[in-house]
């Protein structure tokens, strides 16, 4: 008689459960940093009031520590510069993108990066920029700018980026 046993009682009472701890042998080959961050390198070539002027001379992005969404002092400085620039060019609209590094789960990172962009937006508003000019979007870990497997890249991906979208003077 063929019969199936489904009770949780063991046919092999002596054998304890083996939890397969499959240690994935990561090829810890860090591919170095391939970043396109525009911070720090002030260029005067960019025509004032352009996207390039904003990203190069003002700084279009701020960074966050791991699992942190509050603004750093450096981040606030950058946002203050952005606010000054935005007041100079009052017809410009912006999108504030929130991003997370890859070392988090997908859904949480969407929420986490939404918090980053929301905090950046709130700070710009506190500096006198109208909410009507600011749209936010959260990308979670979907749009990394640096793709190696260590902190040198992850720290660049935990960011909020302000994109100039409308009515840029040319």
């Amino acid at each position, binding site marked *: 008689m063929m019969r199936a046993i489904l*009770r949780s009682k063991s046919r092999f009472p002596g054998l304890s459960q083996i*939890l397969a701890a499959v240690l994935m042998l990561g090829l810890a080959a860090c591919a170095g940093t391939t970043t396109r961050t525009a911070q720090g390198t002030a260029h005067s070539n960019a025509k004032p009031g352009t996207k390039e002027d904003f990203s190069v001379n003002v700084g279009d992005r701020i960074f966050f520590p791991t699992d942190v969404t509050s603004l750093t002092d450096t981040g606030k400085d950058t946002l203050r510069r952005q606010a000054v620039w935005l007041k100079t060019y009052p017809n410009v609209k912006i999108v504030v993108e929130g991003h997370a590094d890859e070392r988090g789960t997908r859904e*949480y990172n969407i*929420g986490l990066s939404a918090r980053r962009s929301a905090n950046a937006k709130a700070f710009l508003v506190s500096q006198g920029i109208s909410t009507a000019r600011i749209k936010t979007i959260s990308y*979670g870990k979907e749009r990394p*700018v640096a793709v190696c*497997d260590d902190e040198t890249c992850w720290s660049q991906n935990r960011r909020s980026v302000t994109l100039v979208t409308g009515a840029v003077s040319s």
Partner: protein
Amino acid sequence: MLMRSRQGRHLITIFATVMLLVVSVPRAAFAAIEIDITQGNIEPLPVAIYDFIGKTDKEQEFGRNVTQVIVADLERSGLFRPLEKASFIEKITRFNQAPRFGDWRILNAQALITGQVTVQKDGRLKAEFRLWDVLAQKQVAGVQFFSDPENWRRVAHQISDTVYERLTGEKGYFDSRVVFVEETGPKDKRVKRLVIMDQDGFNIRNLTPGDSLVLTPRFNPKAPEITYMSYAGGEPRVYLLNIETRQRELVGQFPGMTFAPRFSPDGQKIIMSLQNGVNANLYAMDLRSRTTTRLTNTAAIDTAPSFSPDGQKITFESDRGGSQQIYVMNVDGSDQRRISFGKGRYSTPVWSPRGDWIAFTKLAQGRFVIGVMRTDGSGERVLSDGYHNEGPTWSPNGRVVMFFREQRGENGGPALWSVDLTGRNERKVDTPNFASDPAWSPLNK
């Protein structure tokens, strides 16, 4: 507003009829083929699967193909060890004749599967099989299936399910599908498409063209439909997609981003996160009345909700206590309580279709682990450890968990893997390109 149709099942009709066949077989001592799938350390059952016979060349080709799929299904389950065909002694030529059990016993086969394929006058395929207990020398199952010839793979999966169920006492999971996110292009410019395939990786086809970022597809348990998140038009929101008609529908107009959707067990509700400023809270939307109910209200990221199969409870993750942890609440949002208390950050809880376990992703010490815990948080154990495993989904019978694993490196990407509830039998699920966010369907209707 669109009417919800529940008549969308234009899948093939496959009729299974149980054949009560009397085959004269000498009585033998009691033998018992037992597969205890609740134990982590089982020896796969040796099973001989004879190429299904047929009269014409075409029938024989169908027979070989069907057999190949059954062999692959049973082998991948980790519960069966199909024997080498080359070792077979008896040549089976007649379906209605009992096998020479001695010829199979000597190979240590405990079960024998024989079958026959016939092309009917109306062009349909008839596939019938018998499952024999070699030691008891008797037939223990015999079923015939009819289908359109192009659906022969489904017939094979249904035969595999029948064998699985007969030998384990549990429903199978082979006649099911998986929707996932296919990823192509470089890591910093990924193109993502929704793709559907049979659970064994065949019959793969695109559901979205790749023009918009798409994430987290989840099956409707009752209809050929998925819910997912799309960035279409630059607005990240939750959608429905009928996988037969490809009709797409936005799930409601909300003041903020909606994400992390999942169906209720009856297919009539969607639960999801709604972003409100810095917080994400959980909402349920009734798809018939389009009414929305707020379920959580915290200064936190509440996300990744999943219903219990009885529809009475919801598990979700929240960082309201300072870090990501798993919570359970009643379906109306009452009695929210944390259930995960181990070391690390717990996320993406998914309730088993059997109701007994919650699968999750855990981040601890720089590793991403797939694990399961009881619905009260007890009995936690690891199913798969590694650098980055994420996003579990359950097989329809709650015995296998599929997830994705990120591969390191600038040119690395995610792939789908499956593992038994016991933590054994870890297997890669082959896909043509990088793949993430798997969602396992219920058994096909």
